[in-house]
C-alpha cells in the first residue's frame, strides 16, 4: 500500500476546524500533549507500519 496523497476526507474544512478547535485555549504544553496523543491514536487506526513510515517521511520533508 502507498500513502494517499490525494484528497481523502469529504469535508476537509470541518476536519481542519475540528483540529484547531481541539487546541483552543490550551497552553503550548497541553497542545503538544494533545498532538502526541492524537498521533498515537491515528497511528493505531492506520495500523500499517509501512504507511505510517511513509507518512513520517512525508512529514519530515516539510521541515
Amino acid at each position: 500500500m502507498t500513502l494517499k496523497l490525494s484528497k481523502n476526507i469529504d469535508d476537509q474544512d470541518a476536519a481542519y476546524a475540528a483540529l484547531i478547535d481541539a487546541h483552543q485555549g490550551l497552553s503550548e504544553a497541553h497542545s503538544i500533549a494533545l498532538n502526541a496523543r492524537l498521533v498515537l491514536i491515528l497511528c493505531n487506526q492506520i495500523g500499517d507500519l509501512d504507511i505510517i513510515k511513509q507518512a513520517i517521511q512525508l512529514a519530515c520533508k516539510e521541515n
Partner: protein
Amino acid sequence: MAFDYKPFEYVSPPGLYSAEPRHPVVIVGAGPIGLAAALELANYGVSSIVLDDNNVVSVGSRAICWSKRSLEILDRIGIGEACVAKGVTWKVGRTHHRAQEIFSFDLLPEAGHKMPAFINLQQYHVEQMLVEKCFKSPFVELRFKNKVIAIEQCGTEAIITIETPEGTYSLSAEYLLACDGARSPLRAMMALDFEGELFEERFLIADIEMEGEFPSERWFWFEPDFHNGQSALLHKQPDNIYRIDLQLGWDADPEKESDPKRIIPRIEKVIGHSDFKLDWTSIYTFQCRRLSRFVHDRVIFVGDSAHIVSPFGARGGNGGLQDVDALGWRLAAVVQGRASPPLLEQYNAERTFGADENLLNSSRATRFMSPSAGAERWFRDETLALAAHADFARPMVNSGRLSVPCIYPLTAPDVSIMPTQTRPGATAIDAPIEDGWLLNRLGGQMLVLVIGCKAPEGITLPVLTLEPTTEISARYLGDAAHGIYLVRPDQVIAARWQDIEVQAIQEQANAIWEGRL
C-alpha cells in the same frame, strides 16, 4: 539468607614449571558464559582450560531472570532441572502507571513444555552449579587466580600470558574464547572498537532480604507515588531475596546514592515497612554496545565481552547463553576436524544478528523508561496517559521486552502451511513425547525429525520419528498432513519439507557443515 561465598582453591598450573602442549580451547573468564561454554564443548568431547582472575562466583547477584531458552541450554549441560528446582518460577508481569495496573503479560500461556517461561535465580547460584559441574567433568580444567595479561596471535594459534600468585606463564591455544565480561581486558588488549550508546540515566539496584508474601510476578511501576515520579521494579528471588530497581536520574550522585542511609528510606517507601536487610546494592548506568565482529582469527568473543545491553529485558546473560548455543557445535566440529574454520563465520553472522535484536529491544525499553527531554518525553508520557483508557496503548508501554530466542534469517526449504513458530531459523519448540520431552531428544547432532509418516530410506543422518500428537501437530504440522524437519545440533530448525527428499535433506546438511548456510 545471604549467600555463603566459598573461595575456590588456586592450584599451581603446570605451565609455571614447563611449557604445556598447545590446548585445543582455552576460555578466559569463569562467568556464566565461559563456564557454560566449557560444559557445552565437553558434551562434544572437547577439552578446555578455563582461566579466571578471581576465585569466587559473581559477587552480588546481577542476573536474576533466566529465560526458557537458557534453561533448555542449561538442561543440555546438566543443570537445567536443578536451576528450576532452586529458582522462583514466574511468567506474569504487571506494569503500573501511578497506582493503576495498566498492562500485564503472560509469557507462557500454554502447557506442554518442560521448562517454564522464566525463573528467577541469583547469578551466584547458577555459577556455583556450573562450577561444580565443571569440577566433575573430565573435559574441563578450571584455573582460578589466573589472570590473562597479554595476548598475541600468530597463524593457527593464540598465545596468552597469565599472571598467577606464583608468577607468570604462557599458554597456547588453537582457539581462545574471550568470555571476560563487559569490561573485557582482551577486547582492550586487541584494541577493538566497542560501539553503541550510553544512556544518561542511573538506576539503583538493590537485593534485599525479607519475609514477605509478594507473588512470583514481575511488578513494574512508571511514576509511582512512592518514588517521586521515576520508575521502579520489584521481583522475587529464592531465599527470601527481592530485587528492587529504582530509577534515579542522570543528576544523581553515585557516591551519595550508594550510602545505605539513603538507600534504606527509598526501599521502605516501596515495600511499606522497614523489616528487611540489604543484601547487595549497586548504582548502574546502562549501555548498549557491541563489537562489530565476534570472531577475530583464533580469538572468539562470547557473552558480555561481545555485547552489553541494559538489564531491562534480561537479555545479557540469556543472550550470552544463546551465543554458547550457536558456537559450541561449530567449534567442536572445527577442533575435531569434522569441519573447517569457515563454519565459525556462521557463528559470527548469527550472533551479531542476535545481538542486534537484543540491543534494539533493550535500547527501545531504556528510551521508554528514560526518555530524553522533548518529543521523546511527550510521546512516552502520553502513551502512559492513553493506556489508562485505550487498550491499544497498553502494550506500547515498554518496561522491557523479555528475552526470547531470535529467529535466524536462513534461506532454506520451507513449507508455508506449517506453523511459523517452527520455520527454518527458529529454535525447535518443546513438546511432550512418549517417553519425555522433545528437546531432550534433539540437539548434539544433526538430526532428521519425521512426523506422521515413515522414515525415509537411505538417509545417513540419525532419524527421530514422532506420532502427530495434539502438541506436535499444532507446533510442527499446522495444515500439513506430515512433515520432515532437519534440526541442527543447537536445536535450531535448519529446513523442513512435506515430502521425503532424501537427497535434498543430505545436501542441506552438507551445506551447513561446510559453512555455506
